[in-house]
């Protein structure tokens, strides 16, 4: 998978992963890897700046929690993030449907 292409969709993917289950950065990366069947395998340092930026934009919020004896920064989707996710999902469905139609269509 082209990493640059993936980076463009990273905010949408991160918000989706955090939609129902708050998680810390490492768990988010693991979920991304697992749910993509190992195809989304980004350099790990790229995910945290994206999480921080989403938080700065108000789409995520985070707090320190102690999990398994270790202090973790746990992220969760905010209300604003949920709204943005709904919009982006619709936009993505529209876009991917259009691309599929073009790719699969006859000239």
């Amino acid at each position, binding site marked *: 998978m082209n990493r640059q292409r993936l980076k463009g969709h990273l*905010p949408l993917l991160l918000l989706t992963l955090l939609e129902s289950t708050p998680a810390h*950065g*490492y768990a988010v990366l693991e979920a991304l890897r697992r749910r993509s069947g190992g195809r989304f395998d980004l*350099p*790990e340092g790229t995910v945290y700046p994206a999480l921080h930026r989403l938080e700065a*934009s108000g789409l995520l919020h985070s707090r320190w929690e102690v999990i398994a004896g270790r202090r973790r*920064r746990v992220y969760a989707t905010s209300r604003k993030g949920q709204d*943005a996710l709904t919009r*982006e999902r619709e936009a993505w469905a529209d876009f991917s449907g259009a691309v599929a139609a073009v790719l699969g269509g006859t000239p």
Partner: protein
Amino acid sequence: MTMDRYLRQLRRWLGNGPHAQRVCEEVREHLLDASDARQRQGVPPADAEREAVLRFGEPASVAWMFCKQAPAVAVERIESFLLLGSAALSLTFAGLIIAFGTPSRLVRGEFLEAWGYAAAESLLGWVAVAIGLALLRPRAWIVNVAHRAAPFAFLLGVTGVALATFFGHRTGDYEYWLYLAHGNVLAQGVLAYHRFRPIGDRTTMDSA
């Protein structure tokens, strides 16, 4: 590279603010998790730590992504830079006045007037510093600076203003140059604020 060395390098790039501390703490926890996971797969501890660090990315690149993508980090780093720059500018003004303004006035027996004038001009310089600090809050300015790797440009700007002030002084009209310089700092801040929206105001994921 060991985890401790990696974190030291990252910290050096990020600076010392509270956000930098949070980033380093998060990265440390991540590296511990990643190292533990590898050890569970049978990788020796030292190799597991090295691999975890390697996969995270070069400290400078990671720090740059934080500065580029998380304005708060850039705020901390650039704030101190701007503060020092503004203070240096103000001190330059005060120094110029004391070095070039006072002696000539002393010769003319205008002792009190000369020092009073220098104090007033220094005060004006510190007012400029205060205005500069107030303008730091709009993140747009910080984002602009961080995005374009502009600390160097800012340094050039400060140097330019100082030189203009100096040569303005040499022509005998330094007080006008002083006001021009302060006005320039203020105008740059206002323009930057109006040109770029603060990131926190954006709601689409394109900006995130």
